[in-house]
């Protein structure tokens, strides 16, 4: 009996060991290197990914960061937190133990990571909050301007139709981005949540659990039903949900007649833009973000103080975070893609022509 139990424990341990070794996180070996000032040549930059399994990070962000670092002669190390805020905290320490002079963090949770970030900074290792906010005023925040994304979405739709009934399909309520995007829409002239203006009447506004396209589709179906199809504009916050909304419109024969927005540059969404069923897809080129972060890391290697390093960084702005922190930030400008400028994504190598132009009548839009 005892032997069998022992065997089971050993077996389980073996599985765990195997699983861990495949995750390729190197064990901390090097002692913490707290060398005072480092020349760019022996600069090591550590990146803590929150979930490397998602396509985007491996495909676009990491190569861009690596390329920028290689150009500056710096070394790249990384690990993956597998969507766990706890793991990420120890991962950041692990990177510093491995000798990172600058740490780039794609935060799983912008608040939970704060202690690890604070300890890194107090150890003389500057931290870059990559793509997602970390509520620490001493970190450098690099992201695409989410408010601007919302503004661009609304502007593109209002350019097509500037009066009538509208609905807003927002993202996950717990995600601050949903509200940033909504605020950006207000800047473009859309009334505040729940309100209407003389020309624009709000006939439906809803958050969407998990940004789930299926929930967005159901919301849109119900809005169409409640308004007897009298919906003129659909402000949708990302491409996945835009897919659901357009499926609901298609069921009513309204696809292409109601302007719909999105963001992310999903292949399927860009194809819809080419087909004319989606009006705009605000594209955030992850490679630009990676490049900006890589270059900022090089600058911070040379001068650890963010305030001093400002001059050698890309243009920074001061951003007041929702948590009341005055963040030194680099905001990149996204690019709205409509049927008129599809060549932008093609030329950038973001998407291939056969994917973009699937089922599109040749010559019907520039680029296809």
């Amino acid at each position, binding site marked *: 009996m005892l032997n069998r139990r022992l065997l089971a424990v050993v077996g389980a341990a073996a599985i765990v060991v195997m699983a861990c070794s495949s995750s390729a996180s190197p064990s901390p070996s090097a002692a913490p290197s707290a060398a005072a000032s480092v020349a760019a040549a022996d600069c090591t930059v550590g990146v803590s990914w929150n979930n490397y*399994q*998602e*396509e*985007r990070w*491996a*495909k676009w962000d990491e190569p861009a960061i690596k390329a920028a670092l290689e150009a500056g002669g710096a070394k790249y190390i990384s690990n993956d937190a597998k969507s766990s805020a706890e793991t990420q905290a120890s991962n950041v320490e692990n990177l510093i133990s491995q000798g990172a002079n600058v740490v780039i963090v794609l935060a799983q949770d912008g608040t939970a990571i704060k202690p690890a970030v604070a300890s890194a900074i107090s150890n003389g290792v500057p931290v870059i909050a990559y793509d997602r906010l970390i509520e620490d005023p001493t970190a450098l925040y690099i992201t695409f301007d989410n408010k601007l994304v919302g503004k661009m979405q609304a502007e593109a739709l209002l350019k097509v139709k500037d009066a009538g009934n509208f609905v807003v399909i927002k993202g996950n*309520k717990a995600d601050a981005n949903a509200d940033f995007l909504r605020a950006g829409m207000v800047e473009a002239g859309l009334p505040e949540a729940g309100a209407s203006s003389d020309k624009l009447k709000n006939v*439906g*506004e*809803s*958050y*969407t*659990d*998990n*940004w*789930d*396209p*299926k*929930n967005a*589709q*159901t*919301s849109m*179906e*119900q*809005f169409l*039903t*409640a308004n007897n*199809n009298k919906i003129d504009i659909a402000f949708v916050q990302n*491409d*996945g949900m835009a*897919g*659901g909304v357009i*499926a609901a419109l*298609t*069921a*009513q*024969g*309204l696809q292409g*007649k109601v302007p719909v927005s999105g963001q992310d540059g*999903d*292949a*399927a*969404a860009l*194809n819809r833009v080419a087909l004319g069923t989606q009006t705009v897809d605000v594209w955030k080129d992850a490679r630009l973000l990676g490049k900006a972060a890589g270059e900022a890391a090089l600058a911070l290697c040379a001068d650890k103080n963010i305030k001093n390093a400002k001059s050698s960084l890309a243009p920074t702005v001061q951003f007041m975070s929702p948590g009341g922190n005055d963040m030194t930030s680099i905001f990149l400008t996204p690019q709205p893609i409509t049927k008129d400028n599809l060549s932008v994504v093609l030329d950038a190598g973001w998407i291939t022509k056969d994917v973009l132009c*699937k*089922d599109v009548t040749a010559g019907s839009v520039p680029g296809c």
Partner: protein
Amino acid sequence: MSEATTAPPTATGEPPGRSWRTALRALELDTRLLGMVGALAVIWIFFNIVSGGNFLTPRNLWNLSVQSSSIAIMATGMVLIIVSRNIDLSVGSMLGLLGYTMAMVQVNWLPGVLGVSYHEPYIWIVAILVGLVMGALMGGVTGFIVSYGGVPSFIVTLGGLLVWRGVIFRYAQGQTLAPLNDTFQLFGGGPKGALGDVASWVIGLLACLGIVYTLWAGRRRKRRYGFPVRAMWAEVAVGVVGCVVVLIVVFVANSYAWPEALASQYAVEHGITEPPGGLIIPTGIAIPVVVMLGVGLVMTYIATRRRFGRYVYAIGGNPDAAELGGINVRRTIMLTFVLMGILAAISAAVQTARLNAAVTNLGVQNELDVISAAVIGGTSFAGGIGTIPGAILGAVVMQSLRSGMLLLNVDSPTQDIVVGCVLVAAVGFDSYVRRRSS
């Protein structure tokens, strides 16, 4: 009718309707199911009043039927799993993986390997077959570990929830697959994915014949074994009410006309001059709803008429007695999971077709909706109790709440709160009634 003379003593002699209670008893209806229909009616009427008559329109009811179908399909399988004292938490992830695979088959693999366009008419058949086989295999693996490995189903399917979702992320890498094969899209409903008026009426009439035949055959069988039968008037009443309900459903589905924009597009394509007031094309019952009703029928037959189904209930009622009674418990349990996998594949086809896309978070949290539907529909976690029609009704109740609140512009957090309260209240009320009646 020689049986009539040899009839055993029945309630036939009683005058109909001494009081409504005896009359109801004479009808031998499932009172819990009736209670649910009553609750659903209350919900529908409430939403109709509050939304200013927007809820009980052919259009909204038609939408509701389509929106409920994918959860209802899976709920029928979940009933058998819960009845046999197990649970399946992996259905949402399983659905996601199966849906994604079916989309891969039609968008990438077949066109990639055979060099054919995804428009080819046979592609949807291959995609669905791949989905069904894979669903059965995935369910089989889960079921095998549960029944032969002796690991509690809660744990195995919790693992499944993580593993299947992880597999999707691994090989989907965040990419959305769209658009899908044209025929495949019909499984998602939409005016084009519906039967139209003629076929709907035919199905309605067939259903009526089915009801009449079932009542007649049931009566004859009971006679043969000398069981008491319902009074003739009760039998007729059940048949008439059943048929009327079926025909009303068909009528409502047919009164939902194609949306104007689609109808005029159709008129242009087929060279029809539009009559004044627009072309009216009745939509009829949606294909996903037909699939759901078909699944419901087959599952009811399996659960109540096949040996396998009766074994499931026997195991749920008392596993030890079932084992001692010679039932192959392990094999039966494993088969319930295989069945669940197949149903998840069918649901996955409906959901991906409806979205006309496969996304990586397809089916997230569906396991909770499916389990809620089964439980609201009267399935008991103590095992041995639960019906297929109840689970389908449960799914409709849940979706009615969600759709109704969306019509009223209630935000998603509030929706969750209401649905959560209703779930607990419904089960609490049910067990209260059951305790009092026993």
